[in-house]
């Protein structure tokens, strides 16, 4: 039986004709289970919404690259270059020996001190166009100074980086890009389209379903019992968690983790508001028989409400049964003003951990989660805006890594970042604009951490005498495709190789479908 006919059947099942499918599903389940890893596994997508400036996330610190970085970013009304590794933080009112500038605010890069060195396990090759540091020393790297916890996780081997990943139709050189043959992905640099691309796994996707949801579709054929809770999101209206047959489940992020929203009036019985009929009439109205609805928008809306009602009790009960299992996040201190403030990303990951704690009650063996941190579209004010966001990311990742260890899930849960796109290498004065290839984080005990995967690119803008083979203008041409990155994660989760082409249609155009950063 092909995956497509299976999917069609599941669609049919979703419309209320499940019974004839039992035999087929059992067959499919055995087939898929033969290759799939046993035990619970989950992927957590941390979406950095707006396009994270990864040029200030993961940096190459060899002299040649740093010189071009500094030239491009130490300029404008509010320069966005980070300080070189080893630079001590400079207090407000003191003068930086690096920039010669007196620090006036906590969002001056001098205030943060130098970028934090990391040493990848595998030496990165010197890319074309880059002058190796004298003596043939290995290429050196560092991360943003506001991410010390991430630095620790990297050195502990619990976290790794993917370098220069982005949407591609097939491998692409600069010459090919300039000749527009083979084609470049459509609608690069557009927020909505590149969010859809990253979340759908399809560079020309319609945006109707996401690769998290498609994984959930595949998984639902293996363990249909928990189908409502395979794909979980804390954000509304996003593509990633939506399958073709599996609907995503949006949890309410609360102070105690995650909750379902029960419809209050449906919990009441008897005579209400002076009428013995009103409660049953309201129930019939809230949950109409969709076969009686002639308008398809009405029927589609009624389906969502029905799903909400059907799932809410199951979810609430399961969460209550696992109360206290997932640890709550520690307080987050804003590094710019020293105040303890909310960290919305940590709150969402708390909801994820709470939901994972209930996974056995929810009868799910595989889950995909989607959480989102907004505000990365730093066209201006990048120093103050991105620094806070990366500090929140740092705090949230560290919280979640510890929570997974506490819950014994650190080997079963892999967390990874995605974003609309990278941002321009040069500053526009106090910020950056939309670009392309970017760097990303993968985290978990199953990650072969402490390393950088893929070729860290040559950085810099072309001059009359120097040509960057990895960049067009201000944007990096990806050297690893987003499909490869995501397919490696999907494979670890247990998606059979035969199902990958349907989820990532361009994957076959690349030399490998598995980048090797996961322990199988």
């Amino acid at each position, binding site marked *: 039986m092909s995956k497509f006919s299976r999917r069609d059947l599941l669609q049919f099942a979703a419309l209320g004709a499940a019974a004839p499918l039992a035999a087929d599903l059992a067959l499919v389940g055995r087939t898929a289970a033969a290759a799939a890893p046993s035990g619970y596994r989950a992927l957590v997508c941390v979406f950095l919404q707006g396009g994270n400036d990864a040029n200030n996330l993961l940096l190459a610190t060899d002299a040649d690259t740093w010189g071009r970085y500094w030239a491009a970013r130490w300029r404008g009304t509010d320069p966005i270059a980070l300080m070189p590794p080893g630079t001590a933080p400079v207090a407000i009112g003191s003068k930086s020996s690096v920039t010669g500038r007196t620090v006036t605010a906590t969002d001056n890069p001098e205030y943060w001190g130098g970028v934090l060195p990391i040493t990848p396990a595998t030496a990165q090759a010197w890319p074309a166009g880059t002058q190796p540091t004298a003596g043939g020393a290995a290429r050196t790297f560092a991360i943003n100074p506001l991410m010390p916890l991430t630095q620790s996780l990297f050195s502990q081997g619990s976290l790794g980086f993917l370098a220069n990943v982005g949407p591609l139709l097939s491998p692409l050189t600069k010459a090919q890009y300039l000749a527009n043959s083979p084609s470049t992905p459509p609608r690069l640099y557009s927020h909505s389209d590149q969010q859809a691309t990253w979340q759908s796994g399809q560079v020309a996707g319609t945006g109707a379903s996401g690769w998290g949801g498609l994984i959930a579709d595949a998984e639902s054929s293996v363990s249909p019992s928990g189908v409502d809770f395979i794909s979980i999101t804390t954000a509304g*209206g996003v593509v990633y968690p939506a399958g073709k047959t599996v609907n995503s489940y949006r949890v309410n992020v609360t102070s105690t983790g995650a909750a379902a929203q029960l419809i*209050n009036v449906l919990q009441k019985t008897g005579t209400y508001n002076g009428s013995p009929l009103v409660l049953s009439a*309201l129930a019939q109205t809230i949950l109409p028989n969709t076969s009686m609805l002639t308008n398809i928008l009405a029927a589609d809306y009624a389906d969502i409400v029905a799903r909400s009602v059907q799932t809410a009790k199951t979810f609430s009960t399961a969460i209550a049964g696992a109360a206290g299992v997932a640890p709550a996040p520690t307080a987050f201190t804003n590094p710019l003003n020293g105040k303890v403030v909310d960290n919305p990303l940590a709150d969402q990951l708390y909801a994820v951990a709470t939901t994972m704690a209930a996974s056995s009650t929810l009868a799910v063996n595989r889950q995909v989660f989607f959480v989102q941190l907004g505000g990365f579209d730093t066209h201006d004010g990048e120093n103050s805006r991105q620094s806070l966001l990366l500090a929140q990311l740092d705090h949230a990742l560290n919280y979640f890594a510890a929570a997974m260890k506490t819950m014994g899930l650190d080997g079963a849960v892999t967390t990874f970042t995605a974003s609309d796109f990278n941002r321009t290498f040069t500053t526009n*004065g106090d910020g950056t604009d939309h670009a392309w290839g970017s760097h990303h984080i993968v985290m978990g005990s199953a990650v072969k951490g402490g390393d950088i995967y893929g070729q860290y690119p040559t950085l810099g803008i072309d001059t009359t005498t120097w040509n960057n083979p990895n960049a067009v203008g201000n944007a990096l041409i990806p050297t690893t495709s987003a499909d490869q990155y995501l397919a490696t994660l999907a494979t670890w989760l247990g998606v059979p190789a035969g199902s990958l082409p349907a989820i990532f249609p361009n994957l076959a155009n690349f030399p490998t479908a598995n980048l090797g950063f996961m322990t199988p």
Partner: protein
Amino acid sequence: MRTDNAAGGAAVGALAVAAGAAVIAANVGGPHKATLPPNGGAARFLTQATFGPTDASIADFQSGTMDAWFANQAAQPSLDFLAWVNRREAEINAADPNHLAHATSAQVQEAFWAAALGGQDQLRQRMAFALSQIFVVSFVGSQITPRIAAAYYNLLLANALGNYRDLMRVVTLSGAMGMYLNIIGNIEADKDPTRHPDENYAREIMQLMSIGLSKLNMDGSYQTDFDGNPIPTYSHDDIAGLAKVFTGWGWSSSTPTASTFTRAPAGSDVLPLIPYPQYHSVLSKSFLGGIIPAYSAAPNAAQMYAELDTALNIIFNHQNVPPFVAKQLIQRFVTSNPSPAYISDVAHVFANNGQGVRGDLAATIKAVLTHYEARNLQAAARPHYGKLREPMIRLANFLRAFGATSVSGNFLTGPDLSQATQLDQALLFSPTVFNFWAPSYAPPGSRVAAQGLRAPEFQAADVLTTASYVNMILGVVQVGGWSKDFATAYPNELALAPSGQLIPAIALANRLNTLLCGDNMPSPLYQRIVAVVNSTVPPGSKPTAAQIATANLYRVQNAVALVMVSTDFLIQR
């Protein structure tokens, strides 16, 4: 539609069909010439065109012709959002003993509800609301102040029934958009190859506010290349070219300096941006097939204004603007899936209002609302017709229908309605520049998606928000609003009861049919309301006057609750 118990409703439907048929038969040159029967379809029309019908607005609509209604609407004054925020700022600050309290985004919400509920300029208000979802500016992810937001909404109101080209200009030069999409502080990089002008506004004014990503036919369909693929409207080179136009615009000042360029002097936060020629690109700027020539010397302010107008004209005159705007306005007011003919008819009016004027928004919205596909009940009976009412409009419909008022006069809105556990929508609270929902959104796995159709507002409908809406609105129905300050006691519905008696079920059902369902309520819901109302009785065989009064309030609450959670209300048809 309902045909029992409503001779009037049936007659209205028949008249509307007849009128629509006449339009088809005549195949008139412009759909804006279509008319309604003078007394027919008032409630349904006002459901589409306003924040909801009321007794007064129905009477007003029925008192004259369609043309007179549109003309009268355009003449109505609008609430001054900035004056509202300024007044509230003064009140709030004075009420704080330490004078540390200030107006917040909540005061902008107050102004919205005051205008949506009490404003006589309903069409203009609805239009401004729709435009705020095309020219998106948001409190979320920005440093927009209440004053700047209020000034921006005033601009949308002032131009809502004006010309789209004027709207593009005032939006471009507004402090709100200047902050939200980084026009303010954008500096030329003519001689600096390592820097480039900010591209944010240049990209979004084309993608979201005027032409979109792919070339369109007048009926909204994609133009395609030889391989059948959509043809992009612009490339990154066009964005880079246009981005240079939006350099060197900063806050208004009588003595512009580097400081006033990015920091608004007192009071200028609500004034149009001004040229700062020293920061403006002097290079040639080419985009969308147009070229603005380079300057031989630094431009003066007048040249910068002229250049801006040239640039906006290039965008405004792009072939995509008429169908792009037409489709989105139809989606906001009437139906998520207009026919190609509907889009084309409205787009042609946008392109030329009959007097050679392009971009006439009053003519365009009239074309939207008077079109056969908007007015005819046979069109509305098709399975894919209509749209999910936006959460804010659902609430506005309720509050207007039952005459909610504010005791303080300040329309104190209580909880933050933008939360997913409340309405999941508030004015100028879109999560991103992409609005609360995309025009092309189709819910995964839905009937709509399976048929290749769209349902934009469903992007905000999920297991959390749909349940939250039921909880929220039933609470509102029970208390008549959401606070003691801002509610209704249902006076007109309670008045349906003869003295000392219970409200007749049919009278109440008829009234809700008109006010909440545009006289188009399907029979099952109507019958369910009648049954529930009849079942809602006072205790005992000889109830007191107080018990009868309570039962009547229950009758109203129960009936209204049924409508507000029904897909017959939620899907506006």
